[in-house]
C-alpha cells in the first residue's frame, strides 16, 4: 500500500469522524431519553412541551437559575471526579458522600475553632482541612485494600454511615445551633468563607477552585506518567505489574485522591454555600456523581460537560416540581435513561 492509500483508508476516517463519532451517541441518547420521558409525562396527564422547556430552560432563563445551576455543578463535578479517578485504576469509590461530609466537618471545625485568624490564613486552612479529612476518609479503605485486600466497595460504602453519625454528633452535641430546628452547627467565621464572585444572585469563588482542580485532574490522568500507570492498572492489573507498575500502591493513592476531591466538595459547600454544617447537606450528590462518571465513561475531559448537563436537569427538575407539580423524580428517570442509552450506544457501535 502506498502512503496516499494508507492515509485515505486508515488515517483520514479516524480523525475526520473522530469527534462526531464520539459526541453523536450522547446527543442521540439525550434525545431518546427525553422522548421516552415525554411518554411518561404525557401518560401522567401533564403538558409535555412545557415540561421540557422547564427542565432544559430554567438554568438559562434567569441569572438566578444560572447561578443555581453553577452551585449544583461544583459538588457534582467534584463528586464525579472522586468516582472517576479511582475508577481509572479499576477501583470503585462509593464513599464520596462520606468523604464530603468529613471534609465539611473538617472545614467547619477549623472555621469555628480558629475564628480569630485573618482571612488569608483561615480560608486556606478551612479548605485544606476539608481536603485533608476527605483524603483520610479515602485512606482508610485504601489502606485496608492495600494491606488486607478488603474490598473497597464495601469499605467505602460503610464509611458513609460512620460519617452520618459523626455529623449528627457534631451538629447536635458539639457546636449545635440551638435556634435551628434541624441538626445544624453555628456558622463559621466570616474570614473562613469563600469570597463572592457575584453578590446577587450569590455565586462564590468555589467554582474557580473546582474547575482548576478538574483541569489538574485531567492533566494528571492524561499527561503524566502517574496517570498513565493508573490507567494501565485499571486496564489490566496483571500486565501492569509485569511491566513494573505497582498497582496496589496506585490503587491506594487513587482512593486517597478520590477522598481528597470529595473532601474538597465538602469544604466548598461549607466555605462557599452553607457556612455551617447541616444534616443532609450531602443531598444525592454521590449517586449523581457516579452516574456522571459512568455517562462520561470515566473520561475526565467529558466529566465537566456531563456534570453541567446533569446540574441543568437537577435545577430544571425542582422548577418543574414547583411550577408544574410534576414530581421531580421524573428527572431521575431522564438521567437513568441517558445512562442506559449511552451504554446501549456502545453495544450497537461495537456490532
Amino acid at each position, binding site marked *: 500500500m502506498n502512503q496516499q492509500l494508507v492515509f485515505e*483508508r*486508515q*488515517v*483520514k*476516517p*479516524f480523525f475526520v*469522524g*473522530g469527534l462526531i463519532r464520539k459526541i453523536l451517541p450522547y446527543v442521540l441518547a439525550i434525545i431518546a431519553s427525553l422522548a421516552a420521558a415525554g411518554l411518561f409525562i404525557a401518560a401522567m396527564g401533564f403538558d409535555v412541551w412545557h415540561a421540557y422547556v422547564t427542565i432544559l430552560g430554567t438554568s438559562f432563563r434567569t441569572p438566578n437559575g444560572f447561578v443555581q445551576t453553577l452551585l449544583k455543578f461544583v459538588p457534582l463535578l467534584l463528586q464525579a471526579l472522586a468516582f472517576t479517578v479511582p475508577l481509572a485504576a479499576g477501583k470503585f469509590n462509593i464513599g464520596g458522600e462520606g468523604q464530603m461530609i468529613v471534609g465539611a466537618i473538617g472545614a467547619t471545625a477549623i472555621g469555628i475553632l480558629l475564628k480569630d485568624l485573618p482571612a488569608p490564613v483561615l480560608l486556606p486552612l478551612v479548605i485544606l482541612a476539608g481536603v485533608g479529612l476527605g483524603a483520610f476518609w479515602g485512606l482508610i479503605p485504601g489502606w485496608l485494600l492495600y494491606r488486607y485486600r478488603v474490598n473497597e466497595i464495601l469499605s467505602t460504602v460503610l464509611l458513609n454511615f460512620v460519617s452520618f453519625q459523626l455529623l449528627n454528633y457534631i451538629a447536635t452535641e458539639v457546636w449545635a445551633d440551638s435556634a435551628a430546628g434541624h441538626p445544624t452547627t453555628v456558622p463559621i467565621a466570616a474570614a473562613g468563607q469563600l469570597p463572592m464572585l457575584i453578590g446577587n444572585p450569590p455565586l462564590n469563588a468555589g467554582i474557580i477552585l473546582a474547575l482548576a482542580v478538574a483541569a489538574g485532574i485531567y492533566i494528571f490522568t492524561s*499527561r*503524566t*506518567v*502517574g496517570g*498513565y*500507570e493508573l*490507567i*494501565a492498572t*485499571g*486496564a*489490566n492489573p*496483571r*500486565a*501492569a*505489574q*509485569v*511491566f*513494573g*507498575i*505497582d498497582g496496589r500502591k496506585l490503587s491506594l493513592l487513587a482512593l486517597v485522591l478520590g477522598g481528597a476531591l470529595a473532601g474538597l466538595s465538602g469544604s466548598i459547600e461549607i466555605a462557599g454555600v452553607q457556612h455551617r454544617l447541616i444534616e443532609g447537606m450531602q443531598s444525592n450528590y454521590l449517586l449523581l456523581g457516579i452516574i456522571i462518571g459512568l455517562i462520561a465513561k470515566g473520561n475526565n475531559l467529558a466529566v465537566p460537560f456531563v456534570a453541567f448537563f446533569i446540574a441543568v436537569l437537577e435545577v430544571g427538575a425542582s422548577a418543574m416540581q414547583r411550577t408544574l407539580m410534576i414530581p421531580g423524580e421524573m428527572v431521575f428517570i431522564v438521567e437513568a435513561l441517558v445512562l442506559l442509552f449511552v451504554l446501549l450506544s456502545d453495544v450497537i457501535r461495537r*456490532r
Partner: protein
Amino acid sequence: MTNTAVLEMRGVCKAFDGLLALDHVDFRLGAGEIHGLLGGNGAGKTTLMNILYGLYRADAGEIILRGQKVDIRSPKDAIEHHIGMVHQHFLQVESFTVAENIVPGTPIKNILRLDLKEAAARIAALGEKFGLSIDPAARIEDLSMGARQRVEILKALYRGAQILILDEPTTNLTPQEVDSLFHIVRAMVREGMSVVFITHKLREVLAVCDRITVLRDGRNVLTLRRDDATEEEFVRAMVGENLDIRRSIIFSGRATADTPLSPRLKKEPNSPHSQGAGEAISGRTPVLQVEGLNVLEGGVPVVRQCSFNVRSAEIFGIAGVAGNGQLPLAEVVMGIRPATQGRVLVFGQDVAAIGTAGLLAMGVAYVPEDRLRDGFLPGANVAQNLILGSHRDAPYARGGFLDWKTIFRVSHDLIAQYNIRTAGPAETGGNLSGGNIQRVLIARAFARPARLLVAHNPTRGLDIPSTEFVYSKLLERKAHGDATLLISEDLDELLLLSDRIGVIYKGEIVGVLERGAFDRQALGRLMSGVRT
C-alpha cells in the same frame, strides 16, 4: 465429497472504523469436508467466520445455507441453523464442572431443579462417539488446555452443530493434543459434519484439510483441493510478495536443524561461572546469571536448582514441554515474583533488589508468554500499549510528563514497521486480532535497544512473514552483541536461532546442548525427562 455445498458465503464485505476487513469474499463449504481457512494475521479469517456465527453483521453479501438464503443476526440464530464455533480464547466458568459449562443456554426442563444427570449422560455419549474423552463432572480449572478445548467442541455438538468452526484451535495445544484434535475432526466428518479450520499454520491445514481457501488482506486469493497444489504455492498465496522464500530464515533453517549431528551432551554444573558453554561464548561477559534458583508455588517446587548464564551476543534457548517451569523462571528473571532460594543477576545486579521497574530502566525487554493476561491493556489504545514498560523513560516521558506527540509519532512508525493492522495509534487495543496484539508486544520489546531480552514464545500466533521478521530481529540483536533468553515450545525455532539450548523438565535444567551438537532426538528425550 465436495460436490454439494452445505454453505456458501457470497460477496461478503465488512469494515471496521473505516478499515476494510473483508472485501467481497466468497467462501464455499462442501458437505462432509474439512475446509482450511488460511491466511496471515488480520487477513479476515476470523471476521468472516464471526459473521457466519452472527457475532458481526456483514456490510454486504449473503449467506446461503443448504440452498436457502439465511439471515444470521446472533449466535442464537447460528445455533438454530446448526452452526457451532470454538473460539481461540475460551469462555468458560473455571469453578464450574464440564456439564455445568455446557448446559446453560440450552433448553432446561425444570429450571427450579437443575438436573444434570441426563445432560451428563448425553455429553458422555457424544464424547464417546467422537473420541472426545472427558468427564462431565470434572472441574474446568483442573483441565489442561487441550481438554478445555474439547469442552468447547462438546458445547457446540451438544447444541446440535452440523457445521463446526474452529478458530486457531491449535494455538495452546501440545503436539500430542494437536494429533488427538485431528482425530476428533476426522471422526466428525465421518459422521457427516462439515468443519471450517481457521489457522495461519500451513503444516496443520496440509495435515488435516480436504480443501483450502487462502485469504490475504481481506480478499480471496485462492481455493484449492489440498492435493492440487504444493506447499510452496500455498505459502506464496499467503504471504504474497512480502517474503522471499528462498532467502528466508525460516525455510533455510529447516534443513540444517534437521540434520542429525553427533550428540554431545553436557549437564551444566551448578556454578555461577559455568564452563559449559563453548569457548567463544564463555569468554564473554555474562549478562544474565541464574544461580541455584528454586521457586515454590503453593509449597510445590516449580523451579529447582536452576543455574545458567546468558552472555552478550548470545541467544540462549530454553526448550521444554509447556508447564515445566518456564513461566515461573521467566517471571523470577524479570523480577515479577520472588525466588524462594538462589538469585538472579543482570549486569551483576541482584534482580530481587532492583525489581521489574529497575530492570526495565536498565534496558531489559520482556515478551511475556500469555499476551492477553500479562502483556496487553485491552481498554487502552494502541499507543498506550506500545509504551507500557518504557513509559517512564525518554523519549516518551520527560520530568514525569508524557510527550504524546513523540509517542504518537513513534507509534505510527512502529505500526508501519511491525505491520500492525490497526486504524492508528488511537484505536482501542481490544479491537486488534490475536496476531496483531502479539505484534504490539514484539514492537514494544524491540522498540528500544535492549541489552537483554527475555522472550517467551515470541512468535506464538504470528504468521510466516511476521515470524520471519522476529527471527531477523533476534539475529540482528545477536550481531549487535545483545543477549537474549529465548524460552520457546517451538523446537524448530530454538534449533534455528539458539547458540545453546537448555532443556527444562519439571523445573530443572536437565541438560544444555551447544550449537553444533544440537540433536533433535536427544533434546526430545531430555524434554520428556530421560537423562543420558
